[in-house]
């Protein structure tokens, strides 16, 4: 069977490659940010600020590639679903990376030793869960797997529970007020990161479509 529109396919592949690149940076940096926060190692803060700039450049570039493809190629079916989905998830990726950077920046604000053991444990679990959720969202995207949405929605409930527990712990007043204030924000950042992963997996449901697999 002849394959047509190869140039268009290359444009789509280039867009996919950039999306995957953004996903990759996010997953990597999320783990680094949690590490920085818990170890007090603030060396990554500068690195993440650099990455933030890269993402801020990728975002408009992707938007313009997608607009161009929609304008010039009159996409339909899976091509259209892909381009529309990219337009919708790229802002989520950009915002999520900002949250990651905000988490890392807290490593500058207090010493890891200032955290109560329970706070530390909860943050560690939230960090692991957020990283896991993002890996699952990326996997769902890569495989165009609609079932990721259900899995992520379930895991997000775990995240919400951890968030509540952490807020409860912070409200108990065991730590200094400045540290408590910072940690309230951190709790919120992880919780939002979980929501963004859920949103992305939901978008994959539309992206995946309902095409039956090809019969051989």
């Amino acid at each position, binding site marked *: 069977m002849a394959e047509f529109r190869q140039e268009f396919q290359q444009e789509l592949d280039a867009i996919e490659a950039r999306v995957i690149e953004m996903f990759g940076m996010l997953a990597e940096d999320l783990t680094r940010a949690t590490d920085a926060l818990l170890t007090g190692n603030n060396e990554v803060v500068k690195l993440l600020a650099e990455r933030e700039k890269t993402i801020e450049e990728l975002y408009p570039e992707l938007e313009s590639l997608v607009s161009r493809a929609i304008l010039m190629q009159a996409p339909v079916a899976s091509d259209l679903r892909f381009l529309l989905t990219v337009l919708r998830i790229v802002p989520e990726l950009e915002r999520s990376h900002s949250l990651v950077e905000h988490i890392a920046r807290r490593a500058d604000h207090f010493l890891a030793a200032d955290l109560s053991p329970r706070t530390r444990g909860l943050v560690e679990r939230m960090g692991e869960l957020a990283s896991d959720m993002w890996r699952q969202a990326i996997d769902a995207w890569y495989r165009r797997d609609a079932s990721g949405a259900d899995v992520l929605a379930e895991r997000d409930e775990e995240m919400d529970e951890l968030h509540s527990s952490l807020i409860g712990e912070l409200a108990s007043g065991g730590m200094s007020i400045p540290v408590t204030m910072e940690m309230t924000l951190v709790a919120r950042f992880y919780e939002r990161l979980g929501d963004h992963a859920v949103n992305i997996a939901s978008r994959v*449901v539309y992206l995946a479509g309902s095409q039956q697999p090809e019969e051989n």
Partner: protein
Amino acid sequence: MEPTPEPNVVAERQARAAARPQDTRPQDGAESYGSGTTIFDANGISIYYGSFRAVTDVKLSIYENEITAFIGPSGCGKTTVLRSLNRMNDLVVGARVEGDVRYRGTPLYGKDVSPIAVRRKIGMVFQKPNPFPKSIYDNIAYGPRINGIRNKKRLDEIVEKSLIQAALWDEVKHRLKASALGLSGGQAQRLCIARTLAVEPDVVLMDEPCSALDPIATSAIEDLMKEIKSQYTIVIVTHNMQQATRVSDRTAFFSVLRNEESDTRTGVLVEYGQTQQIFEDPHDPRTQAYVTGRMG
């Protein structure tokens, strides 16, 4: 505020996917655009030219007051199926239709059905505008006269009404006696549509009505189709997929099935559904490949 997750969207979509029928025919119900009444029901028709089977086992229903588009690559049989709907293929020597096709519940190829009567109810507009070498007025009055209308006033009314319906009246009302051969391509095609409407058909079949027209004339015909669909049922064959997305309520995608052993090819209906579904989320990989332009 950042958007909250949307589990409902996911759940709804999955429920819809689960409820999707295996049958390729679109379902009646909330998403139906017209009255929901079927005008044609083809139940497994095959169409032959001599021993050559041009189309195999087509099952589909055409709904009242809707525009249905037939799309597909050359040789997929879409025009053959269209022509079978008003027995136009009867005029081709050796052509025959096997299987059951009903028009408003009556077998279209029944023994006591007159093909002339069928074509009076089911009009056709062709790819190339084919005005008769007569005046604009006489082109429109031709059909009604054959049907026995002689009254001048009545004919005037029909001519005016048909030309208004075909969005041509304002352009030609001062030169009704002029030859139709002097019209532009787009005007000539609208004249042919007016001529089809003049005999008050039930269905209008259109075989690539815009392929010889410029974009402005094409827009005029597309607007006209949407304008008149409340009174007629329209089936259009088009190579222009964007036209199908612009005008049609439902789309049928036909493709060519090649038999390597016997080195023969035949047209098949691959997928039929709401136009938005066919172009946004086709279920069959062949439809996907065709509408996205990945194969011919």
